[in-house]
């Protein structure tokens, strides 16, 4: 036992206690809740990998860090594009003097200037059949000649990038022309997403298969080499162009201090450390110990952060911590498989919606921070109106039982056991168990199908499910991204995992999705939202809320759904940090 004590003492001595916070460098400390699998923009398929890619790479456009509703602003493009009268030809002027990061990929290791050819190359790379990019869906069948180029090259041994694509041309060093097959109102959003961020051909060729570990972008931060570790450190790009913090924002931003750095050259910090922390407890404890400056609060930590009236708990207030609570652009749902004959019965679907007690669910799993989804479109996007109340999104057991009789299943008689597929995580299991309890009240027997993530995806892709539960987050701020979940041609293996088909809905959807943003299109979106809602293609769940805690010294953080480019605007107040750190 003495030896054990000796060993522990030695370990303590060598460990020299935990590391202290730094006040010398203008650095910020962030958390990524999942491992980063590499820095190839064309495969940055989720929010977290996009956040990392966005620190080193840039796109033609970016979302304004302060303005809401979300507004695009030119980034590598000098201005918004000139669009032809038919809405099909886009002319982009590229910003001059933008430099790629220094890298051994370039002659003498010095980054060269960004040219129009780089934009053409990066878009072609997204279509390269040899790379099978996760982001290809964004431009699939959109640009004239690009699909043909992809198909032709899939038969070739090596992709031929020098072959011209009719709808994708550089007219000179600073001008790119893109021609669309049909109107694509979300096109500019696509050019602000990490999938279309610009990479130099030299780096791709120099590093080959290792390119994803040697990011060479034009972004505000540098990462010479990426290694799987518990922390990624980005350094300020000393050759970053003259780019300034915006001087305009949303009403109220000034009061919140979000315009204090207006007009200053960005980036405002020298270093960003991203800690890869998967589990909730270490994330939470690291934030409480001020090791991290920002925390996305989830699950068990919600109760520890906020009171029942959604205000910040006193113990955090005392330390100057700020609470940021903003609705997410997402929707959770229990989807029926409409190819199962049972679920062709609309009254059954409506009855199940009515029997789902969302209020208790919200309290139990979201601490009342989520909003009941009335339809597929979340609040904040055109097409979702506050006035619209889905008649089946309420807890009404009597009406549910009545509908069960009308559906031909009085008290659930004659209905087989319904299996709801979910992932095997504890929280997912608990949520389906709650759902099971709700359905039991109208005589429906639910069985829980637990799966690993690949198993669940496979079952949905192959239509081997009766019901499944999932959430969908916005790829870009357009309701089309949510309505597409109910569009028949998108059925499995596409995003319409419910395999819902409604010809009226489809006709209206096709009409709306080629329209530019206008009040007419919003009207159509509203109609689609109501149509999708009342037909009960899913059991509607919630639009969840993002909850963030930010340390007092972290400046310029504003909730942003599409935050790939946000990090270059963050700042740190070292004086405040020095004063407050004693409280931690």
């Amino acid at each position, binding site marked *: 036992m003495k030896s054990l004590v000796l060993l522990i003492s030695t370990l*303590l001595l060598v460990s020299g206690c935990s590391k202290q916070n730094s006040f010398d460098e203008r650095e910020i400390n962030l958390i990524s809740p999942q*491992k980063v699998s590499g820095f190839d923009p064309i495969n940055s398929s989720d929010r977290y990998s996009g956040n990392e890619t966005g620190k080193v790479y840039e796109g033609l456009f970016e979302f304004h860090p302060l303005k809401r509703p979300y507004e695009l602003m030119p980034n590598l493009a000098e201005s918004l594009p000139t669009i032809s009268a038919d809405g099909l030809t886009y002319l982009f002027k590229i910003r001059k003097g933008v430099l790629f990061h220094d890298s051994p990929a370039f002659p003498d290791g010095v980054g060269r200037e960004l040219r129009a050819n780089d934009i053409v190359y990066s878009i072609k790379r997204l279509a390269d059949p040899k790379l099978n990019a996760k982001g290809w869906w964004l431009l699939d069948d959109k640009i004239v000649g690009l699909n043909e180029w992809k198909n032709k090259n899939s038969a070739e041994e090596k992709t031929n990038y020098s072959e011209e694509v009719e709808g994708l041309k550089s007219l000179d060093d600073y001008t790119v022309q893109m021609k669309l097959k049909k109107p694509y109102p979300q096109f500019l959003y696509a050019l602000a997403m990490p999938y279309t961020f610009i990479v130099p051909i030299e780096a791709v060729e120099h590093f080959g298969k290792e390119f994803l570990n040697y990011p060479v972008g034009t972004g505000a931060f540098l990462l010479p080499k990426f290694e799987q570790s518990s922390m990624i450190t980005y350094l300020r790009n000393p050759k970053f162009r003259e780019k300034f913090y915006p001087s305009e924002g949303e009403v109220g931003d000034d009061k919140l201090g979000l315009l204090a750095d207006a007009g200053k050259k960005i980036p405002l910090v020298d270093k960003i450390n991203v800690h890869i922390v998967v589990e909730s407890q270490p994330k939470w404890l690291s934030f409480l110990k001020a090791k991290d400056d920002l925390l996305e609060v989830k699950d068990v930590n919600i109760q520890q952060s906020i009171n029942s009236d959604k205000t910040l708990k006193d113990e955090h207030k005392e330390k100057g911590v700020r609470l940021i609570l903003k609705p997410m652009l997402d929707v959770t749902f229990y989807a029926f498989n409409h190819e199962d004959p049972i679920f062709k019965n609309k009254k059954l679907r409506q009855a199940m919606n009515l029997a789902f007690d969302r209020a208790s669910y919200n309290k139990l799993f979201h601490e009342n921070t989520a909003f009941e989804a009335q339809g597929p479109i979340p609040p904040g996007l055109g097409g979702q109106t506050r006035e619209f109340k889905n008649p089946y999104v309420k807890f009404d057991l009597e009406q549910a039982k009545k509908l069960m009789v009308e559906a031909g299943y009085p008290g659930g008689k004659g209905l087989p056991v319904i299996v709801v597929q979910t992932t095997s995580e504890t929280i997912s299991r608990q949520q389906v168990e709650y759902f099971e309890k709700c359905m039991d009240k109208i005589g429906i027997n639910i069985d829980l199908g637990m799966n690993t993530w690949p198993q669940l995806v496979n079952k949905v892709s192959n239509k081997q499910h009766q019901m499944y539960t999932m959430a969908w987050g916005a790829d870009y701020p357009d309701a089309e991204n949510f309505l597409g979940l109910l569009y028949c041609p998108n059925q499995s293996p596409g995003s319409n995992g419910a395999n819902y088909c409604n010809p009226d809905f489809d006709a209206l959807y096709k009409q709306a999705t080629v329209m530019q943003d206008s009040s007419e299109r919003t009207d159509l979106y509203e109609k689609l939202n109501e149509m999708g809602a009342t037909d009960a293609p899913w059991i509607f769940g919630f639009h969840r809320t993002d909850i963030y805690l930010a340390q007092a010294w972290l400046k310029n953080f504003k909730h942003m759904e599409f935050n790939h480019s946000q990090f270059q605007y963050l700042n740190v107040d070292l004086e405040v940090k020095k004063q407050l750190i004693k409280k931690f």
Partner: protein
Amino acid sequence: MLRYIIRRLLYLIPVLLGVSFIIFVLFNLVSGDPTAVLLGKNATARQMADLRDQLGLSKPLIEQYFDVVRSAFTFNFGYSWSTKQEISQMIIQGAYPSMCLTVPAFIIATVFSLLISLVVAFYRGKGIDLFIRITCIAGVSVSALAYILFFQYFFAYKLGWFEISGFEYGFPDFVPFIALPAIIFILLSLGPDVRFFRTIILDEIYQDYVRTARAKGLSEITILLKHVLRNALIPVITYVIIQIPSLILGALLLENFFSIPGLGGMTLNALNSSDFPVIKAMAILSSVLYILLSLLTDVLYTLADPRVKLK
């Protein structure tokens, strides 16, 4: 002995063939099509078909099986499907943090367990024996997760003695990060190890040769250390060596909670993303390690007990 070693090494061939077959069958029959997971939420049928071609999943099954066999014998596992990283590099990068944590912790835990077992065997039936037995049973009754959550909260957060999570490469930089998970590893190992070693030592203590030694007037300490321990070493060696592959493969829970970028987390990620090449590589490596270590066990038997002859 050399002939024995060569023969045992040749066993690797049928074992690797068998392992390749099992992995192949499990992957093809149980796990289904990986392309939907690999392509993400907006996958199209066409894209999935293209990816299947590219990954070689459209080839005849026999060809696919030979690909698995080839990689088992050449150790060329190629690139990860999900991260696109080179698998050998991923394994090297992940093995280092995993082993920084598990190897020293394992050695310390084994030595301590043996010492404690000798003490309780010496005092068998007395208060200290009872106390340690009860402590061990109580220890193994609590879930590993509870230890991790409590120790991380109390020692790292409340007392600030250790880092909460993270890892740095290079000695001694990694020590502050692995100290607490290593202590938890040791504590988690002590319970089952002490109980197992105590049983083995007690089995020996009641043998005739111990009575003879006592009759000759040897002290209890001499009997324990010189005779009993030596005879008990064979099952101890088996028990210890059998655990080595799991050390290299990482301590998944500890790695996850302490953000140690080891092989445990890598394997879990591979399972969650249908990353067959990584799963395959880890399964093959484990089998090879297992065989090599069981061979090492046999060789160590001859050192522990000269009566054992390898033929």
